[in-house]
């Protein structure tokens, strides 16, 4: 048995968290919160595409729908569900609630997203590859139209001025600096959950499915169940990111649930590095910084984004982090071949 090579993941993560803790001293905290939300969103997306090989082109439905749910619960509270009665036709089942605190609203948005993920997952995992991408895109468009028509989302206006009530009854999260550390904690929890998942035996099976699905089936794994669990987990965390984002910007709108948002998370993950642990974080930071600085270019942002897509696919398929890892690997191999003494190296494989 050989021991696995020493992983730099945790030291790097600790350094990143250290940077993030000091971050608001140098950078506008709302921008940092935006980066954290989208980084979590991209990490959740990457769990599916990078480790199971399922490219979802509809992840905005989880992000945006959870944002609506969290925003509505934090602002209004009252839940009205349409029900169809045999004699009366369509009626509204109303549960009167007062506006909820942010932590409950975020939790509820996340849970609803998990449920949506279960429904969509059951349908979508029946196809693989390109079809999976098309099916998720189409189902996300359906959720978009539902959000467009549902009364509680307020159509084109969206849910605006979502209040940030004191969190856990103590933290005054109206202050962006305090809320920033709450968002950072949420991000770390989500990231560590994903990290644990991909390094668990469950994660190994996911990677086996990605590499060779037929062989995983023949080894006796219930492949569809593994895919579904991974899909629901990914949807849940995307929902967590979306619900948090609704409270950061105090806004939930159609932008969050539209197909362009699904494309954006694909772009972030692709630029950062598909299937790398830190790629989605880097990708989210790079793309959001670019959007902020290029906002004055208007329509050309779309052209620039598309160009980045094309260039990345043609030239840097491994993304920023993937290319850096490749570079580090080559350097290491070079150093190893230069040092002639193999004494401190393990036995030949």
């Amino acid at each position, binding site marked *: 048995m050989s021991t696995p090579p020493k992983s730099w993941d945790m030291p790097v993560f600790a350094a990143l968290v250290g940077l993030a803790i000091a971050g608001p001293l140098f950078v506008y905290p709302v921008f940092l919160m935006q980066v954290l939300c989208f980084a979590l969103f991209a990490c959740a997306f990457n769990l599916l595409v990078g480790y199971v090989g399922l490219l979802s082109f509809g992840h905005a439905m989880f992000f945006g729908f959870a944002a609506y749910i969290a925003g509505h619960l934090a602002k209004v509270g009252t839940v009205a569900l349409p029900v169809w009665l045999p004699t009366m036709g369509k009626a509204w089942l109303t549960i009167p609630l007062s506006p909820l605190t942010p932590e409950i609203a975020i939790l509820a948005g996340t849970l609803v997203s998990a449920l949506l993920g279960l429904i969509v997952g059951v349908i979508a995992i029946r196809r693989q590859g390109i079809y999976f991408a098309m099916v998720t895109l189409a189902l996300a468009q359906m959720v978009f139209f539902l959000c467009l028509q549902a009364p509680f989302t307020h159509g084109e206006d969206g849910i605006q001025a979502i209040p940030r009530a004191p969190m856990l009854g103590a933290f005054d999260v109206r202050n962006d600096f305090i809320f920033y550390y709450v968002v950072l904690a949420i991000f770390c929890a989500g990231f560590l959950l994903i990290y644990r998942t991909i390094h668990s035996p469950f994660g190994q099976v996911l990677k086996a499915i990605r590499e060779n699905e037929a062989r995983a089936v023949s080894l006796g794994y219930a492949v569809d169940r593994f895919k579904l669990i991974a899909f629901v987990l990914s949807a849940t965390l995307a929902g967590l990111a979306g619900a948090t984002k609704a409270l950061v910007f105090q806004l939930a709108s159609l932008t969050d649930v539209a197909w362009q948002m699904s494309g954006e998370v694909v772009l972030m993950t692709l630029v950062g590095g598909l299937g790398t642990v830190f790629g989605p974080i880097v990708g989210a930071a790079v793309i959001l910084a670019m959007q902020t600085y290029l906002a004055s270019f208007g329509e050309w942002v779309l052209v620039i*984004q*598309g160009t980045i897509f094309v260039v990345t696919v043609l030239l840097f398929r491994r993304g920023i982090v993937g290319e850096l890892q490749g570079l580090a690997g080559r350097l290491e191999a070079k150093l190893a071949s230069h040092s002639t003494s193999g004494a401190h190296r393990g036995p030949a494989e």
Partner: protein
Amino acid sequence: MFELIGVSPQALFGQLLLGLINGAFYALLSLGLAVIFGMMNVINFTHGAQYMMGAFCAWMLLNYAGVPYWGALVLAPIVVGSTGVLIERLFISRLYHLDHLYGLLLTFGLALVIEGVFRSQYGISGLPYGNPLPGGTNLGFMFLPWYRGWVVVVSLAVCLATWFLIEKTRLGSYLRAATERPDLVQAFGINVPRMITLTYGFGVGLAALAGVLAAPIYAIKPDIGANLIIVVFAVVVIGGMGSIMGSILTGFGLGILEGLTKVFYPEASNTVIFVVMAIVLMLRPQGLFGTPR
């Protein structure tokens, strides 16, 4: 009978005709996607943008060069198809050895670029295009505008011609053989890479033709393609991309179903195709005309 279901015949047949026209666009676009996918194993996300380019090309030909609709009907597919040939040679051909998902991502990026360029040049408000066949006829139970009838007839004819070309001619048999075993067909002395390039150009030309047909009906806007292509993806999933005739039938069928939904339950008209897709995936994952693999 009409009193029984509580719908006036004018409304019913009017929506049926609209559904048939939408179905014509679904059929033309999903046919192009199926032809491209069959040959290249690439899902052409740029298809919607190329449909939009077809409509804009017709508008430009009219306003910059004075070419009327009937000329644009022939010229626009050729022009846009040529840009497709260029895209295939420059970009897509570099990805054949990779996972198909990269083809999807590449064409998605290209679609964003194309849409962005048209947005920055022409805005998002929409350009008008005159109706080349004004007027219509009263069929007794409904009023049929000439142009709408023309759209249905042309797209049906083009769809059937494409089906004939691929399923019944020698060229089509080369195409189908190259889909199965490109190496073997190449060994028989057929230039398979060129055939792939021309197939892509042809598929793109079909999208552009749909765009020209749509120009006098809808306002010409940069985002018309993006919204349509998602529905067409659902159509393609429902039909399965295995058969040419399957794409045609599914396209028209779903257009009509959408029209009927507008009559009987308008709230669901945006979502009915996606609901059908979900049901088909649960019952017959390979699609109505697809083969399991």
